[in-house]
């Protein structure tokens, strides 16, 4: 069953340019994505490509100065304000990206509990703390007293309880030590085996590959490719989109190749053509003609006119 379905999602920011004139910047553009029951879908890609915005759009916590179009549905129902209120914190949980999501004036232990929590969840969290090597003492600390890695573990523990049906995890692992990353990933895997859907937003491709069933690659506000985990191997011949290949080959363990061409290749696509066109080695005149439409290819899909 499809747990989460995102259809043609676009997000743009409105900001005051001069006086009362407002400018619109598109940051997410025509995004489609599905997460099924028991499935882990990883979202990897460029910094600033709209990965966190996707998470915030699903959770209904985007800032006020945005325009959102498209559909987000949960279990086949449109996820409107009333349904969000019902599911958020019980069936749908977010692992936020930064420690700034914790209340700075509240001790960690006090803010771990959701209003819907009972004894069962409290016990679950305690076990999780032990597995992640957080001492009981941690519950008595204020957020500013946590190290970067400790904060991640605390954020992770807020969401990863068995009651949850859909977890949106926004960069849950950076700063955590190797062994804790393994523990956290194993936890996601075991929740997925019990039917929970996980949307794992990360730039740790290695981590994503270890547990994800499918991998969505984001660039400039849209998914340019959806691949299977096994496509990421060797020098990336199985990958479909040139950006995915560049991302794979840029890993320290795979050649550490920087992308040639334009220095910074992220951010909103403003041009009409393929957003990756200006940095792509195989770009031709066709790429400038319009945004490539998604098409199915070798068990995944891709937005590139050249991919074969």
């Amino acid at each position, binding site marked *: 069953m499809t747990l989460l379905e995102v259809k043609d999602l676009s997000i743009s920011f409105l900001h005051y340019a001069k006086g009362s004139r407002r400018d619109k910047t598109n940051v997410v553009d025509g995004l489609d994505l599905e997460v099924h029951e028991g499935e882990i879908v990883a979202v990897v890609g460029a910094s*600033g490509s709209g990965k966190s915005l996707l998470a915030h759009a699903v959770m209904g916590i985007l800032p006020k100065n945005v325009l959102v179009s498209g559909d987000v549905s949960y279990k086949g129902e449109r996820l409107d304000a009333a349904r969000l209120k019902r599911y958020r914190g019980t069936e749908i949980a977010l692992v936020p990206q930064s420690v700034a999501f914790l209340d700075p004036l509240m001790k960690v232990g006090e803010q771990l509990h959701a209003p819907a929590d009972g004894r069962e969840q409290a016990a679950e969290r305690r076990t999780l703390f032990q597995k992640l090597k957080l001492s009981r003492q941690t519950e008595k600390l204020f957020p500013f007293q946590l190290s*970067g890695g400790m904060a991640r*573990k605390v954020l992770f523990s807020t969401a990863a309880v068995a009651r949850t049906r859909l977890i949106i995890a926004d960069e849950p692992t*950076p700063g955590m030590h190797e062994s804790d990353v393994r523990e956290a990933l194993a936890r996601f895997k075991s929740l997925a085996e019990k039917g929970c859907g996980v949307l794992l937003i990360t730039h740790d491709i290695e981590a994503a590959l270890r547990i994800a069933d499918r991998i969505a690659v984001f660039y400039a506000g849209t998914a340019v490719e959806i691949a299977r985990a096994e496509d990421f191997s060797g020098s990336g011949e199985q990958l479909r989109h040139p950006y995915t290949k560049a991302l794979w080959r840029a890993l320290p363990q795979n050649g550490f190749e920087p992308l040639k061409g334009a220095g*910074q290749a*992220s951010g909103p696509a403003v041009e009409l053509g393929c957003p990756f066109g200006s940095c792509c080695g195989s770009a031709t005149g066709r790429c400038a003609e319009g945004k490539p439409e998604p098409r199915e290819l070798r068990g995944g899909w891709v937005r590139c006119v050249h991919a074969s």
Partner: protein
Amino acid sequence: MLLEANHVGWRYDKGDWLFRNVDLTVRAGEVVGLTGPSGSGKTTLGRLLAGYMQPAEGTVSVQGRSPGGNAHDPVQMVFQHPERAVNPRWRLEKTVKEGFVPEPGLLEALGIRPAWLSRYPSELSGGELQRCCIARALGPETRFIVADEMTTMLDAVTQAQIWHAMLDIVRERQIGLLVISHDRPLVSRICDRSIPFGE
């Protein structure tokens, strides 16, 4: 030219020791990795080395550090979250030029586009901001850089671009580099040697 920590220890007030008896040396032109579990005090050690804090015991020494701390310090630090390391109300130009005026060549080598300098931090991506933070740290008197999870928040392509630029500059100017990171493949790719911490 050496950056040295001798028997350095740290704790908050009278709390438990976070670490004690840490000895560490970084030579000019050397790239050293520092890896260890979260909460073991890697960032704190970095801050001690960079002179942001005084060790609770032991000493940190580097040639050219002003005792009053009111001159350009030879040890500069680059942080994990660039958006928290810059003044949100300053345009980037002011931030980048606060300590010295970088040559256009340096900005170009780091892939910084001139247009970014007229923007505010909230209008740049993490990778763009981090490049500006690196430029700011590479002043003429900088001899050592402590890079604390410098590219942890960035995608692999941006990470590779930034490190290639950084390593070229560091090699040319014989700057010593301490790389604090969890990413073992990254550390083994770029560092001459690595020090396990708190294990």
